[in-house]
């Protein structure tokens, strides 16, 4: 019941938050010094042509009217056309969405399988050399600029050793688009070669993305386990003479991992942000690369479209995390 109230409460705020976000980015991106109309009209266009283009796009209207028009067309599912690719923004975003999701999902999987066990071990052997080493490594993992890490990985593994591809998602054209996830599509088509090639291309970007994520998970899991270890129910169980192994598996881990689950949800959001730069370095044709390119070329419809998608994803993830938390944690149900 409490969860339901929480969800309804949150849903009410989704639309105003998105509207506010769009307003901010709209006003930021429309103060662009470069005039999009003259860009579209071409370099040698006469002032009259530029004015005509400006009127056609509604760019001669006051800013708030432009914004209202933009919101109206969004509500009809029209995100406008990209100035750069000249295709509808919605189409561009949709075709690039799977590439980013594939990367982010793989990174979350890698980060969790590495981070959770290491975090648990770190807490169980608190203040051992292993714990200290992990503390340094995790802080280091969070201190590296991801674009630099990506470049150093490229330099070492692609250029020097030649064992990983330098950039891109696949050699050649890639599998037939069914889901847009190359690994899934390759599995559906039953093509192991394409699958291996896709995985091969994913190695470096996934490592770059998952390192800081894994570091966060280690630290969070460690804190959660330590918290559980110092609780009264563990003290009680120990006093009752339960074997330590049983206490850890049955009481400590179960309670500690509730926090980690929610944290992984939030990390997923952070990964989508990290993808912006990592995709740019690895030339990965996802939403992040699209965002960087459209921002750098002042492609305002594309920037707005990306903002809308990113904002929606963030809000949805946060909502899901809250719901999940409510379902796992009995205290929230009461």
């Amino acid at each position, binding site marked *: 019941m409490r969860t339901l109230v929480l969800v309804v409460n949150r849903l009410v*705020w989704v639309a*105003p*938050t*998105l509207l*506010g*976000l769009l307003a*901010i*980015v709209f006003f*930021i*991106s429309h*103060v*662009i*010094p470069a005039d999009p109309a003259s860009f579209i009209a071409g370099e040698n266009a006469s002032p009259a042509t530029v004015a005509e283009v400006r009127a056609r796009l509604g760019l001669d209207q006051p800013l708030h009217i432009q914004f209202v028009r933009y919101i109206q067309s969004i509500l009809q599912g029209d995100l406008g056309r990209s100035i750069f690719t000249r295709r509808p923004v919605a189409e561009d975003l949709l075709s690039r969405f799977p590439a980013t999701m594939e990367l982010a999902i793989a990174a979350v999987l890698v980060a969790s399988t590495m981070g959770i066990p290491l975090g648990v071990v770190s807490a169980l052997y608190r203040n051992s050399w292993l714990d*200290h080493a992990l*503390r*340094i490594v995790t*802080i*280091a993992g*969070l*201190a*590296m*600029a991801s*674009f*630099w*890490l990506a*470049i*150093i990985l*490229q*330099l070492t593994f692609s*250029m*020097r050793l030649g064992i990983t591809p330098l950039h891109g998602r696949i050699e050649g054209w890639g599998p037939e688009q069914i889901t847009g996830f190359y690994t899934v599509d390759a599995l559906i088509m039953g093509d192991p070669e394409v699958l291996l090639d896709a995985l091969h291309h994913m190695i470096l970007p996934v490592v770059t993305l998952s390192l800081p994520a894994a570091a*966060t998970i280690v*630290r*969070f899991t460690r*804190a*959660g386990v330590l*918290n559980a270890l110092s609780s009264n129910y563990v003290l009680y169980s120990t006093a009752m003479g339960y074997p330590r192994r049983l206490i850890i598996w049955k009481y400590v881990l179960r309670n500690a991992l509730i926090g980690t689950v929610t*944290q992984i949800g939030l990390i997923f*959001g*952070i990964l*989508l*942000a990290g993808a*912006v*730069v990592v995709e*740019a370095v690895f030339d990965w044709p996802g939403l992040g690369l699209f*965002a*960087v390119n459209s*921002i*750098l070329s*002042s492609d305002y419809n594309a*920037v707005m479209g*990306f*903002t809308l998608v*990113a*904002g929606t994803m*963030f*809000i949805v993830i946060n909502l899901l995390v809250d719901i999940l938390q409510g379902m796992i944690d009995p205290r929230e149900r009461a």
Partner: protein
Amino acid sequence: MRRVMRKLAQDRAAMLGFALIVLLVLVAILAPFLSTHPGDVSDFHTHRRLTPPGEANWLGTDRMGADIYSRLLFGARITITIAVVAITVAVLIGVPIGLVAGYYDGIVSDLLMRLSDIFLAVPQIVLAIAIAQTLGPSIENVILALSATYWPFWARLVFAETRSCRNEPFVEAAIALGCSARRVMVLHILPNISSSIIVRTTIGMGGTILTAATLGFLGLGPPPPAPEWGRTIAEAREFLPMAWWYAAFPGLAIFMVVMGFNLLGDGLRDVLDPRLRRAHDR
């Protein structure tokens, strides 16, 4: 205060972090004296471009033949300026908003917090790139973009902390004694929540430096010939794998500085605020 210092001094990792930060500040101040080629921020020597690290050029030279070691030292000035000013502005915006919204109930509080939620609804880096691109590449605009995107972190934190101590006896006592709302907020609540703000600010410095470097990497930082670290790495990409030193050392510099703030922040958190350790990490 003395207790905090003593406990912090026992934490070797935190002390290492502190040392790294002191090193950064010293390097930034003493750059003209420590550098071997102080003129190389703007000078170039095409005859010795892309020389590997050696006796004359400790960390090698770049595409213009300028000494990378000297340029890195001067780059520290840019990094420190951006981080300190941007964070100061973000704190000066975020803390008062958080205090006011946390202290009062009502529509203004709701609106202020919704506003910060809106800023937190997209990845910070995206918003920062968008703002920096609109304003054009310069050091001032990087600072503006960063403070505009980072203030909600302090607003959120201060809001939550203010809410949780608003009904404490010491606040009620202050109100009962007739203190004005402003006096209660500034003299009674703020000192009590300052440790969380300090921890958050220290760790925030690291994050801000990373974002600033990313902006530089994307060409949105201070324009050449400024020896900004992120931009240097972007320039170096053309010359890989041959000139590895060109990309490696600026990244290492960023890494050391951010590591310094993160280590110190981590240590401070353990000493100042054990509660935070259990809640959100980063």
